[in-house]
């Protein structure tokens, strides 16, 4: 499609938007529009668009500026509160997980029965996951599990405060 440009386009649009078109427009411009496809399109489209725009205000029911400002304030505060609470939530999760891990470690260390139950359960789970060959050799899981769990808990206790620090810090 060849792009056609007309130097009178702005004059035509100005006449239309200022309300001079067509009655109070000079004959020369009207004659030009009659013979110019570009300007005829400008008149057809712009007058239709302006008519729709001018008919619209009665339909529009938008919130007042005061309501909009208040809603924006509430929403921003809600988001800020949620943002501020995020490190606390992270810290709570880490703290809770630490308590659970420490409780398990304490139970394993203090109660041979619990250690045995946990060991056989882990043996079943690990055995099922590893396939039939893994269950061939019998071993006491509870015995070697205690130092592993203690080591894991130690690592966790070192990492948890670091995690909290990075979650809470600004940067």
């Amino acid at each position, binding site marked *: 499609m060849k792009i056609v440009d007309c130097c009178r386009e702005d004059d035509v*649009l100005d006449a239309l*938007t200022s309300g001079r078109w067509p009655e109070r427009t000079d004959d020369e411009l009207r004659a030009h529009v009659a013979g110019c496809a570009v300007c005829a399109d400008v008149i*057809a489209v712009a007058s239709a*668009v302006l008519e*729709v*725009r001018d008919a619209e205000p009665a339909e529009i029911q938008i919130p007042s*500026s005061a309501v*909009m400002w208040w809603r*924006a304030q509430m929403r921003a505060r809600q988001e800020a509160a949620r943002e501020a609470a995020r490190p606390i939530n992270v810290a709570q999760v880490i703290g809770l997980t630490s308590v659970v891990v420490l409780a398990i470690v304490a139970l394993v260390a203090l109660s041979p029965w619990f250690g045995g139950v946990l060991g056989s359960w882990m043996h079943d789970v690990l055995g099922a996951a590893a396939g039939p060959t893994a269950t061939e050799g019998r071993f006491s899981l509870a015995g070697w599990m205690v130092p592993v769990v203690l080591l894991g808990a130690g690592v966790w206790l070192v990492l948890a405060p670091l995690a909290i620090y990075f979650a809470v810090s600004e940067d």
Partner: protein
Amino acid sequence: MRDLTFTDVERLEAAEIDVPFEMDEDAFRAFYDRTARSLWSYLSRITSDPSAADDLLQESFYRFLRTRVNWESESHRRAYLFRIATNLVRDGQRRSRRGQLVALPDQDHNALPSPGADHGEASARRTDLRRAMDRLRPRERALLWLAYAQGHAHTEIASTLGVTTGSVKPLLFRARRKLAALLRSAPARSLEATREDR
């Protein structure tokens, strides 16, 4: 945002939380009063959905408030607001295309309430234009509305739509030509529709 309860509102109003808005209330309200109606018209026209325009209007102003930009001028500020709105519409259209939830164009505007609902010639003409515009692509609708209803300059249109200033003229020419052709073919149909209504 989820709906707030009364307790939430009381708590949030009482909370001394620093709200990071660049504009103060007076400046925002003055800007809103100057631009909200034209933005709503723009959104309503390019989405063909007045209720979507309500939501998009609020979201656009909220995002506008949250931005930290130094405004060079009123037109820059306005173009930025319209750009946020345009991007929101685009995002919504992408989502609706993916989810096939809402068909934005091709709504029957006879179903929309109109003031007076006079079924007169002017009303039929407006319906013709709305239907014709619905047959254009969203970007073409946006171009024509910004250029002729809002009277935005080409630089402002380019900034709003995220295109180069030089491409506005040819895009506008094509969109205008397409709409003019649709409008020329519309009168016969609208007269028949008006007769049927009577």
